[in-house]
């Protein structure tokens, strides 16, 4: 792999600004991403994630600010940036009217591979990504998960030093999402730097080494997933009882162990703020010892809404579209 000094910064952005008409889609974003890491950019729809990624991938010219990607200025040295990165956009960036194989051969040829090498490379990627059987089908007939995998494979026809992934799992079922996560982990362990935009805290938590939370075109928090969750406060332990009549007892026990119990509208359910799995397990054991029968329980991570509520005091809200591509 070609990733140079592991401590070198793969992305350095300062004060990036981009407006569309009246709307400031990106309003002074700073980012620094270490080479070889997976960096998550977390935010709701319309927060400015896609616009940021498009500026870094040289598809949009910033109105103000500057950015260097792998040491190259995105405005002055666009060609050098394009030669080292790949982009997997939010809309699947593959040609729906061609087959999966044709898509990969097309990109191989455009990237400078000879005909034979492009074909071999397509075969290799189709097999590695589990789409060999659908290779000769038109992409418009692919399932969402297959299309996503092809899309990522298309970004790897020539191994990029840095990969932009814009909401790679939005709209996928859990199984397809896990497959995409597996791919991202494999990519990362081979040394590719990844900038991952996502709306899901869980996704950023699972995959990223560092996270920037973005809202209204600004970075409002930054840190490792652990730091971020700690700053947000806890997730919650949700418990449902077999017998609603036992709820007062359960409330007492949980209050003693964890504090701050919330009674849910469901008369058999209650929840309590808790981020620590061990403490939750102890509290559940206490319930069992106290003779309270639990139907089911879950330890939830704070949702993006909770993160936003904690960081900004307002819930994550969808804004109007951040840009009009057509």
């Amino acid at each position, binding site marked *: *792999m070609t990733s140079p000094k592991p401590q070198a910064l793969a992305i350095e952005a300062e004060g990036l600004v981009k407006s569309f008409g009246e709307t400031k889609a990106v309003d002074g974003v700073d980012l620094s991403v270490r080479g070889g890491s997976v960096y998550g950019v977390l935010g709701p729809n319309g927060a400015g994630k896609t616009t940021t990624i*498009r500026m870094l*991938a*040289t*598809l949009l*010219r910033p109105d103000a600010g500057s950015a260097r990607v792998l040491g190259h200025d995105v405005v002055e040295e666009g*060609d050098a940036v*394009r*030669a080292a*990165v*790949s*982009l997997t*956009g*939010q*809309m*699947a*960036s*593959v*040609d*729906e*009217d*061609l087959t999966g194989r*044709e898509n990969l051969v*097309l*990109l191989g*040829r*455009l*990237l*400078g*591979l*000879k005909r034979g*090498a492009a074909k071999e*490379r397509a075969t*290799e*990627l189709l*097999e*590695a*990504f*589990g789409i060999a059987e659908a290779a000769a089908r*038109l992409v418009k007939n692919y399932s969402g998960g297959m299309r996503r*995998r092809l899309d990522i494979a*298309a970004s*790897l*026809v*020539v*191994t990029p030093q840095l990969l932009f992934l814009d909401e790679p799992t939005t709209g996928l079922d*859990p*199984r397809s999402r*896990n*497959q995409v996560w*597996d*791919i991202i*982990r*494999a*990519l990362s*362990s*081979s040394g*590719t730097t990844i900038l991952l935009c996502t709306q899901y805290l869980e996704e950023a938590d699972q995959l990223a080494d560092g996270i920037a939370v973005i809202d209204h075109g600004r970075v409002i928090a930054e840190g490792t997933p652990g730091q971020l969750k700690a700053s947000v406060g806890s997730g919650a332990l949700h418990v449902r009882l077999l017998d609603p009549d036992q709820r007062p007892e359960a409330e007492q026990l949980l209050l003693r162990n964890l504090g701050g119990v919330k009674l849910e509208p469901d008369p058999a359910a209650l929840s309590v703020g808790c981020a620590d799995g061990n403490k939750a397990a102890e509290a559940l054991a206490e319930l069992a010892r106290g003779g309270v029968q639990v139907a089911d329980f879950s330890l939830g991570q704070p949702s993006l809404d909770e993160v936003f509520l904690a960081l900004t005091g307002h819930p994550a809200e969808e804004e109007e579209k951040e840009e009009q*591509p*057509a």
Partner: protein
Amino acid sequence: MSVETTPTPEIRDAAIQKALASTPRPPRASALDAALTFGWRGMLKVKHVPEQLLDVTITPVMFVLMFTYLFGGAIAGSTGDYLDYILPGILVMSVLFTTVYSGIAINTDLTKGVVDRFRSLPIWRPAPLVGSLLGDSVRYVVAGTVIVVLGLILGFRPEAGVGGVVAAMALTVVFAFGLSWIFTTLGLLMRSPNAVMNAGFMGIFPLTFLSNVFVEPETLPAGLEWFVNVNPISILADASRGLMEGNADASDITIVLAVAAALTAVFMPLTTRLYRTR
């Protein structure tokens, strides 16, 4: 929410690692290679949906039949004479109508995410556009061939033989390549493929009819005659007739080539710029 955690055997970690490790970056594709690859893409689309060629051939076929048999006697005295007159012109019309579809194709592309991928590649920047027009040239040839074959069936016998027909076709395709840059510009400016189609035909239809494709300009009112005579489509139709008859006027051919070059020189950079910034 419970998340399914079954392993996914079809994604093979090791295979992905290997796939990632095995590619040294090849030297950048040349401008020509990149453009030809985009041309190949256009032809693959025709291969997958051959019906799209029907659109571009049915109208001209209807025109040949309608004008020859409906108006031929009235305009030229006999259907045979009129066929000799209009066939080279309808070849031109048929190919020029097809250029509108180049704009529609670009506009359709823009509504899909694939354009982002193309724009993020380290390639010669006009390559997607030049390539798509090169691919479209194949359609132009198909549209032209249909007309010539139909003409031959109906009794059209060009004096200059195969060579003349091929030369007329080649000149028409070169002109179409130049003209299609206008429609790709339109394709990048308008909101939907339908809007491109409407605007495109609104332009190309009157321009084709206000030429000498169907009637001799001498029969027209003075102002109209003047316009018809300077209309590049008339000059192209004259050149095409001349090449098929074996008496082409060199200045006609020069003008046609110059107009094609001028259109390319103005609209290609404009289109490339729009493609990059849209």
